[in-house]
């Protein structure tokens, strides 16, 4: 058990730190200055490009596609040094962290050479077009429909939701149904969709806070060429699983990424002499802080597993459950201590209190996560599935029948 670098790791860390020292001045600030969102976005793209040139982006991507061909440990070292340098990381975490690896695993050589470079350098940002209004927890239930045309092209119709970065993305990786007459996991196909294609409409989706943290994406007769297919027609589910696996990986290695840290939550309480001596306040703070502190070492355990060649399983979902619930307990406590001012529109706490209920459902509701972990990790029997083996097109009828 050793939290220190090996000599090789220390040397790599030194090189990363040196590069950051040299280029720190070229980095944009951590957050967009009020009213300069547009310019800031451009600066973040440019900064991602510099990070890529410096070898600080796509660390785990294979060399032949422009990556560094290094391991998760080096990725973590880069993350640590970037946050220590107080400069922003790459802009397109979703693309480089989850969608790129999917294309690397399932894409054609043409797709790899066309898309991966611009993605890595931030010239083209990507978004993930999986979730739908009627297919959230049940991802395989997507209804977006891609029909094959005689010339081999496809016509796409449907609606996606909870899409991050869609408003400034160049491309989206989209899961659509190409065959409704087979069971739902079988009739799916993954596509690359140019976000500027005719028929693609992006609309901001406002959350409790009033801010649009996500988007809805509407697809009306969007025409896609035959080469837009990733991983083969009908193999969409398998392709999607790769993306989800890298999603877990990204979460597992960066559970503190959301900024829900114990010390941050302790600060406003420390500022109140009455509160910091109150046994109820201290108990609530101590209990939630202990859980958040645990996650730091859960991340190290994930990293250890990766170094041992093991891919983290669904149990990393538990880290998300812990984070969200501990953060809710923390912001509740802070508002109890500060009083109504914590709920002022300008307060970071009011923002967090508004953001957390949505985060609870983002990336799978807590109920679904617990199901998955119970079945895949503890090996508990699944719920009786009423949709097994039934053609997708007949599902709704079946649903009505069994619950009549």
């Amino acid at each position: 058990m050793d939290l220190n670098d090996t000599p090789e790791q220390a040397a790599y860390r030194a090189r990363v730190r040196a590069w950051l020292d040299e280029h720190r001045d070229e980095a944009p600030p951590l957050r967009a200055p009020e009213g300069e969102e547009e310019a800031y976005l451009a600066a973040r793209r440019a900064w991602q490009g510099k990070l890529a040139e410096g070898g600080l982006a796509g660390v785990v991507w294979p060399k032949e596609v422009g990556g560094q061909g290094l391991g998760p440990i080096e990725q973590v070292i880069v993350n640590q040094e970037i946050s220590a340098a107080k400069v922003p990381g790459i802009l397109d975490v979703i693309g480089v962290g989850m969608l790129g690896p999917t294309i690397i695993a399932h894409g054609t050589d043409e797709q790899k050479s066309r898309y991966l470079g611009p993605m890595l350098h931030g010239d083209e940002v990507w978004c993930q077009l999986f979730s739908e209004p009627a297919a959230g927890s049940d991802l395989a239930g997507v209804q977006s429909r891609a029909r094959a045309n005689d010339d081999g092209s496809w016509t796409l119709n449907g609606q996606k939701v909870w899409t991050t970065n869609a408003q400034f993305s160049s491309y989206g990786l989209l899961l659509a149904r190409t065959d409704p007459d087979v069971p739902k996991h079988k009739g799916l196909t993954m596509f690359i969709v140019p976000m500027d294609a005719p028929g693609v409409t992006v609309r901001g989706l406002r959350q409790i806070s009033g801010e649009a943290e996500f988007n809805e994406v509407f697809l009306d007769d969007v025409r896609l060429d035959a080469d837009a297919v990733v991983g083969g027609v009908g193999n969409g589910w398998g392709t999607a699983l790769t993306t989800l696996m890298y999603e877990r990986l990204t979460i597992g290695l960066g559970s503190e990424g959301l900024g829900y840290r114990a010390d941050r939550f302790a600060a406003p309480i420390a500022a109140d002499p009455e509160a910091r001596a109150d046994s109820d306040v201290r108990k609530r703070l101590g209990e939630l802080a202990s859980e958040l502190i645990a996650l730091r070492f859960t991340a190290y355990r994930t990293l250890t597993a990766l170094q041992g060649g093991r891919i983290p399983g669904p149990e990393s979902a538990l880290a998300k459950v812990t984070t969200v619930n501990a953060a809710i307990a923390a912001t509740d406590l802070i508002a109890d201590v500060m009083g109504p001012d914590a709920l002022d529109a300008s307060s970071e706490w009011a923002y967090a209190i508004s953001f957390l209920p949505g985060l609870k459902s983002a990336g799978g509701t807590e109920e679904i996560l617990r199901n998955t972990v119970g079945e895949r990790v503890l090996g508990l029997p699944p719920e009786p599935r009423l949709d097994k083996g039934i053609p997708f097109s007949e599902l709704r009828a079946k649903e009505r029948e069994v619950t009549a």
Partner: protein
Amino acid sequence: MNLALSDEQELLREAARGTLSRYKTVEAAREALEGGALPDLWGAACEAGWPGLLVGEERGGAGLGPFDAMLVLQECGRVLAGVPLLGHLTASWLLDRGGYDGVEAVASGERRAAIVAAMPPSDLHDGWTWEPPAGKARVPAGGDVAHWVVDAPGADVLVVVGEGGAVSVVEGAPVEPVMRYDATRSLGHVSLGGATATALDVSPADAANAWHLAQALIAAESVGTIETLLEMGVAYAKERFTFGRAIGSYQAIKHQLVEVLRVLENGRSLLYYAGWAGESNADEFPIAASAARSVAGRGLDAASRITISVHGGIGATWEHDAPLYFRRAQLSRRLLGGTAAASDRVAGELLAAVS
């Protein structure tokens, strides 16, 4: 031993529901967050005779009791109605007991009242306290500025409970309206420095009961809000399908909704207790009203969060109604001593009783 509502009470509730249904209060709650104006319900409230509910008939009121007032607040809570009854009714009750001259105008609603309520002494602390401007330590009653006064903006008459539970009437004190998270809750900071105060002839015991009355009223309001949340959650759980089943058929959803029902039922029971004690057993009013608020306040908190998660991601969006009820829960929890002070008083009353 019968808790059945009287015909008059059934009528009062039906009338309240009917009156409020004529306004788009929930939509208004959302628009008000972005500066929209709330519908002015005061006129309707006056027509319905709500402002005088707790004022004696001989002084133009309806001469009804706390439980009747709670029935109306419960209906207001169901639809997030922004009608300033919480402050007005509590103030009117004290004004009536104190034989205030202008009480008829208050009973008719012609003049609106609000109260700077003070938390009465407990088994641990003998002072009377006001809400703090910020932070956990409460401030002694009787200062120059009273913070987070419910329904203060627009009130013509201000009943102020100060040091030692002394009560006075203040008119024309400057009020700084403040909005925090829930636009349907009228709130203000009141500057009492320059204002002239006329003593009101009521006892500290009355001043204390005014505090407990406010606790009972906000509890009733919260119970009404929980009722709507439960209906919302149950309806969605029946119509939304995932993995081939209505989500309400899954225990994780079903049991959460049953939990909302459980706290709702406990809250309803305590409304009866607070209403009964308020009318016929003054000794138990403090613990009854505090218990009602403790259960209803925590219940509202849980219910609003459960309703959002039952709806999944869509429940956490701006256009959805659930977040408006969530906002109500978040702010109410921190007003009038907060839900926590009510739980603490239940403990204090019990500990004092068994000692």
